[in-house]
């Protein structure tokens, strides 16, 4: 087990190098740089702009900028410096750290929401295969898969505006500061409902389809016939035997689901004005605040790898047949 974890973590290094290198290159293919907004202000001295270019290292070619950044990131003296945001003059990790909790909360709630809805639906669809319920749930699943998240987010905002049942985006109410801890909790929950549904719906469909297929495969297998022949009650056959076998591939899928949900959350955050990482990265990209973008990429890819690793560990725990050494 330990070797697997080390191997995975080592694999992170070339991947992060590749991703950050590509990202720097792409950002520099786009015309202009962070200082464009400053250049168009009427009362800015040209000398000052030059000094800022020097300060930010923007006068260097992009690959030099990349290697300078990289040499600061590599912890020679046990300290890794990911640079600071040009716009906020704040350390990149500090900036990302401020926004991370909101994104993680949204990812976790929508993941939980997706599983809680999708697993029972998938099981039911498998047990009552080819019934009306199965057909309708399939159609709905395909529909959900094909609606882009940002569009769903717009619909959700429209719904909130028309009914007034939910807040129009955001993470907390204006009066949040002045609330009791108890009300604070409910306020956040209230704000989370719509984004959670929007982010979760796409995953519900895919998880449900996978669950249904696996379940059907397992129902057809021989051990089910044996168990039935022995006279084991149908409920126990389904939930103790079939279910445990059928859920295996889903645990692997959860690792990926985490990453898709993370990227989905980014889009939804932008539309619903949700103060998470996506919101920050979007604006950083528009402003060409490059170290923020790189920092966020490093964080996102690391989370993806860790998510997959976690899924593999959970898989071994659920299925004693799986051994990694």
């Amino acid at each position: 087990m330990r070797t697997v974890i080390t191997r995975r973590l080592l694999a992170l290094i070339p991947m992060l190098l590749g991703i950050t290198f590509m990202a720097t290159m792409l950002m520099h293919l786009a015309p202009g740089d962070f200082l464009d907004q400053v250049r168009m202000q009427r009362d800015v001295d040209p000398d000052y702009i030059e000094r800022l270019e020097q300060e930010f290292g923007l006068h260097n070619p992009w690959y030099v900028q990349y290697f300078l950044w990289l040499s600061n990131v590599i912890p020679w003296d046990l300290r890794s410096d990911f640079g600071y945001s040009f716009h906020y003059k704040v350390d990149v990790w500090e900036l990302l750290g401020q926004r991370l909790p909101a994104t993680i909360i949204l990812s976790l709630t929508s993941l939980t929401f997706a599983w809680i809805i999708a697993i029972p639906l998938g099981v039911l669809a498998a047990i009552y295969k080819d019934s009306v319920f199965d057909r309708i749930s399939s159609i709905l699943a395909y529909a959900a898969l094909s609606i882009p998240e940002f569009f769903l987010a717009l619909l959700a905002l429209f719904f909130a505006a028309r009914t007034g049942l939910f807040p129009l985006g955001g993470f907390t109410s204006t009066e949040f500061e002045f609330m009791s801890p108890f009300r604070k909790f409910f306020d956040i929950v209230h704000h989370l409902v719509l984004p959670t549904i929007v982010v979760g719906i796409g995953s519900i469909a895919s998880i449900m389809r996978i669950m249904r297929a696996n379940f059907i495969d397992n129902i057809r297998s021989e051990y089910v016939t044996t168990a039935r022949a022995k006279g084991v009650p149908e409920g126990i056959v389904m939930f103790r035997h079939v279910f445990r076998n059928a859920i295996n591939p889903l645990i692997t899928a959860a690792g990926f689901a985490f990453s898709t949900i993370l990227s989905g959350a980014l889009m939804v955050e932008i539309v619903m004005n949700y103060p998470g990482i996506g919101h920050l990265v979007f604006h950083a990209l528009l402003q060409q605040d490059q170290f923020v973008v790189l920092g966020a990429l490093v964080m996102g890819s690391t989370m993806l790898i860790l998510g997959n690793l976690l899924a593999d560990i959970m898989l071994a725990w659920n299925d004693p047949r799986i051994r990694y050494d």
Partner: protein
Amino acid sequence: MSKKQAAIVLRKTCLVAMITLCACSAEIESEREDHPLPEGADVSERPPGVRGDILTGTSAGTPATFNPLVSEDASSSEAIARILDGLTRFDPVKEEVVPALAESWDISDDSKSFTFHLRRGVRWSDGEPFTADDVVFTFKAIYDERYPNRMQMEFAVGGEPFEVEKIDEHTVRITTPEVYAPFLLYIGTPILPRHKLHEAYEDGTLMRQWTISTASGSPEEIVATGPFRIRSFRPAQRMIYEPNPHYWRADKEARRLPYVDFFIERFVQDQNASMVAFASGQSDHQGITPDQVGWIRRNAERHDYGVHDRGPSTSTNFIWFNQNPGKNENGTPFVEPHKLEWFTNKKFRQAVSYGIDRQGLIDGVIFGRGEPLWSSVSPANTQWYNPNVKTYPFDPDKARSLLKEEGFQYRDGRLYDADGNRVTFTLITNEDNRLRANMATVFMENMKDLGIEVRLRLLDFSNFVNRITDSLSYEAGLLGFTGGRDPHGGMSIYSSGGRLHVWHPNQPEPATEWEARIDELMQKQLLTLDEEERREYFNEVQYIMSEQMALIYLITPNTYEGMRNRWKNIDPPNMGSMIWNIDEIWAEQRLLR
């Protein structure tokens, strides 16, 4: 505890929980500290009001920093201005510089030396006294080589910094190397607290102080002299200001300002979201763009607000031709020689100006809510606007005859120059500005009537900026500038060596006589404190600009601002925010939530 007692406690807890849940909104209590007024407190001239209530605003921009040395954008500067005061203040209604942290000042006979008498007894919001040391420290920080900031150039004449000396605890003398016209206006820069920032100044980390992390983690570190201090800051969500308990202004009844208990600014996605929030009663004031006025007015009664028409805005929009005779590294001229000949011909530019239907632009693009623009200064800037400049009312016939006089000819309604080249050019502007793209489209139609073919290219902002300031190969552009009260702010546009002298930037020597004359006038107006004299010089600059049409001014949209009716002491100035005197405004009736 007996069982019975436990049951009672439990019941009480449930009850409290239910009440908190049921209440639609928590009652917000302010907890103001009470400190004696400083001995030199400034007394507001406006009628006294009542303390209390919350002023709410929404904003599409989030402050990026609370450090005045770092601030680059309007959102940051606005936030800083609420927290930190300067020696002087500009009163936009009186249109003059009024005392702030300095109670009064004397000007030496040679107009170069200013002695500021600081207000006595003023304290920072943490209770530390405000003294001459803070002022000296601020200028030391501004001029420090380690901390490049844009004030370095505002507070210098010909690269020479001002001399700042402490006379005693309450007196500071600032001497400029030459007479510097906008001195009193600019000297209102925020004064920094020496006791909080000196250490960071010494160890070279001053630029990393007072970031948004400070504001969200330890807002009490950002001490204030202004009306407010930061209570809390949540990135991308909101910012809550609370009154500075040591603020130096009071009303006639000796109550310390500001009146409001809290000022909340919510950060929203964009300006549209901000306007929707206002029109649905979620905020108290809001700037409104001309194209949105109609529907927002319809909600006015329901949410008890008024939409004020504030007349022309400070923003200017113009079209210009590239008159740069230079070549790029490959030796190709920026502009084809025969086109350069048209573009540098004053009559050609004037003809184009006569050919533009500005009223049509106003009606078509901003629903009639704007004014045609003839001068480089918007009429909103009443202090500096010159109404007597050359105007170009829409007259296609006159335009055509002007062109013919210059040797241009018409064949099948198309315009050709004397050498038989078809008159056509490409106009560039940035795509993210809808107003500009729309104006460009109308302009194309207008030019078609003159037989000129205009092709429109919409570029993204970075690309656009690169074209007009760096690569310089383009034919015509459409751009706008906003704000800028003092002529000094326009130096980079008017002077031939300026960076934003867009039609031919960064000239080592003025290329034409009229550009040389403008350079001379702009220098002259800088070297006197006499406003009348400055106005004379600057009026001539505006006249030359209007005659030469190097920048063909188009229109300026009107400004509209919405404000809830319950707010009193609102006194809208000609330009700038309606809540500029945020410390003096108060709510007549409490909002029942």
